[in-house]
C-alpha cells in the first residue's frame, strides 16, 4: 500500500472548482513532483491534502488512514506536513521560536532537543542566526528555516510548495541538495514547482497538472527531452 494515496480529488474555493479529479500515489521514501503553469491548482492540491482547504469529493489516504476532512493540526500530528508557498515563516519571531513552533505538531513529545540539534546540523545557518528575527534572514535562509520547522515534527511526508520561489540559482541548488538529504533520511516528499526541468530531474516521478487535471506523468528521463516537457506543460501544439 502506498504511504499517500490521493484518489479522484476535487477541491476549490467556494463554487470555483480548482482541481478536478486528481489521483496519484506516493510510496514511502520516494519523491513526487507536481508541475504546471500558474493557476492550474498545484498549491490548491497541496492545501487540500494538508487539510488547509476543504475537499469536495475524493479521498486522501495517509499511512492507511483516510485523512480527508481532518483538520490541518490533526493531519500534521499523523506525520504529513506542508511547507506553504512563500515560506510563511513568522517574521516577527526569532529563528529559535520558529523552530520551537515546529515541535507543536510532534506526536512524540520526547526527543525535542535532539531533533532541533539535528536541524542545526542539517541547516547550519539556522544555528548561526538562532536568536535573530526570522524576517531578517535572506530568502534562501528563510526557505531553509521553513523546511527545518516542518521537519521538526518528523513527518513521514513533507509537502513543499514552490521552495525555489524568489531564490537565486545557487541558493536553489543548495535547497534541493538539502531536500535530497532529507529524502535519503527516509522522508517522502511531494514538491510543487514552476520549474519543470528542475523538479523532473529531482523527483522519481512528476505529474503535470493543467486545468485542474493530471495531464501527464514524467520521469527523470523526460527532463532531457525539452520538447516532450514543453508539450506536457503547455499542451499539444504549443
Amino acid at each position, binding site marked *: 500500500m502506498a504511504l499517500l494515496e490521493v484518489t479522484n480529488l476535487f477541491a476549490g474555493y467556494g463554487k470555483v472548482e480548482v482541481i478536478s479529479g486528481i489521483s496519484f500515489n506516493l510510496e514511502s521514501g520516494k519523491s513526487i513532483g507536481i508541475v504546471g503553469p500558474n493557476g492550474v491548482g498545484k498549491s490548491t492540491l497541496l492545501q487540500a491534502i*494538508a487539510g*488547509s482547504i476543504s475537499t469536495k469529493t475524493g479521498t486522501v489516504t495517509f499511512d492507511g488512514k483516510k485523512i480527508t476532512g481532518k*483538520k*490541518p*493540526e490533526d493531519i*500534521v*500530528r499523523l506525520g504529513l*506536513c*506542508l511547507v*506553504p508557498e512563500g515560506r*510563511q515563516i*513568522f*517574521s*516577527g*519571531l526569532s529563528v529559535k*521560536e520558529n523552530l*520551537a*513552533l*515546529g515541535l*507543536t*505538531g*510532534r506526536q512524540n513529545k520526547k526527543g525535542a532537543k535532539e531533533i532541533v540539534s539535528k536541524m542545526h546540523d542539517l541547516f547550519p545557518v539556522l544555528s548561526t542566526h538562532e536568536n535573530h*528575527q526570522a*524576517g*531578517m*534572514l*535572506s*530568502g534562501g535562509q*528563510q526557505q531553509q528555516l521553513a523546511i527545518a*520547522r*516542518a521537519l521538526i*515534527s518528523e513527518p513521514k511526508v513533507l509537502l513543499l510548495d514552490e521552495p525555489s520561489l*524568489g531564490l537565486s540559482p545557487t541558493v536553489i541548488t543548495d535547497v534541493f541538495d538539502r531536500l535530497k538529504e532529507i529524502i535519503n533520511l527516509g522522508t517522502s516528499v511531494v514538491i510543487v514547482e514552476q520549474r519543470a526541468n528542475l523538479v523532473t530531474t529531482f523527483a522519481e516521478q512528476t505529474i503535470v497538472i493543467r486545468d485542474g487535471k493530471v495531464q501527464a506523468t514524467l520521469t527523470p528521463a523526460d527532463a532531457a527531452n525539452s520538447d516532450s516537457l514543453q508539450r506536457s506543460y503547455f499542451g499539444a501544439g504549443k
Partner: protein
Amino acid sequence: MIQSVLDAISLGGLYSLAALGLGLVFGVMRLVNFAHAELITIAAYTLVLTTQYPLLVSISFALIVTAFIALLMEFTIYRRLRGVNPAIMLIASFGLSTVLQRLYELMFGALPKSAVVAPFLRGDFKFFGVSITISSVITIVLTITILLLMGYIVEKTSLGLQLRAASADFKTARLLGVRSNRLIGAAFALSGVLATFVALILVIQNPQVSPYYGLNITILSLVGIVIGGIASLRGAAMGGFIVGVVLSALNTLLGNGRVYAYSWLFILVLIILLVRPGGLLSKGSELERV
C-alpha cells in the same frame, strides 16, 4: 501632583489590561469582541454580589464565572462564525453585547447594584507629607503584577508562542500543529481572567455596577488597541496604557474644561493614525528583509 501621576499610571495600567484582553482575542480570531465589555460587567456584578465572602473567594467566583461566560461566547457564537467576513463577526459581537446587556438588566435590574468591595483598600495614607489613595497604589501594583504575568505567559511559554504565531498567521500556525479550538478557547479564557481583574480594580474605585458598567472602558481600550497597533499584543497593552495616561492627564490639566477630555483624546488619536496608520508599533517591531 504625585497623586495625579499615580492616578495617570493606574488608569493607564487599567486600560492596558482591558486592551490586552481584547487584543488576545483579536490576535487569534481577527475579532473585535465588543462583548468584552459584558465580561467586565459580569465580573463586576459577581464581585459586588459576593462581598459576604472573603475577598479571595469573591475574586475566585468572579474568575470562574467570567472565564465560563467568555468560553460560552466562543463556543456558542464565535466558533460558528469562524472564517466569515470580519464585518459579520463585528456585528455579531455588537449583537451579543446588546443581548447580554438586556440579560443583565433582567437578572440584576436596571438600577446599579452596589456594595463596598475590599473596604480596607479605601482611604489614603501620607507619604512624605503627601496624601496618596491606597486604591491607586494597589491598582498599580496589581496591574504591574498581572502585566508581568501576562508578559511571562506570552513571551516564555508554549501557549504564548502559539498565541503570538497565531496572531501573525493562524493558517500557518495550524499547519504546524497549533490546535485552533484549544488556542482560541485559551485566548477567550485569558481575556475573561483579564476582564475580572479590570472589574476588580474598577469596583474598588466605583462599586455602582449597572448593565453598561464595562462599556466605557472597553470602547476606550479599543481606541488604545488601534493606536498601539491592532495586530500586536505589546501594541495593544501599550496603546491602552497611553489612552489611560492621556485621559487622566487631560482630566487633570483641563480643570473645568474636562468635559472636553474625550474630544482632545480623539483628536490625538486621529493625529497618531494619520502619522502611523498601522499604530505606534506597526513599524520597527517586525523587521522584514525580504
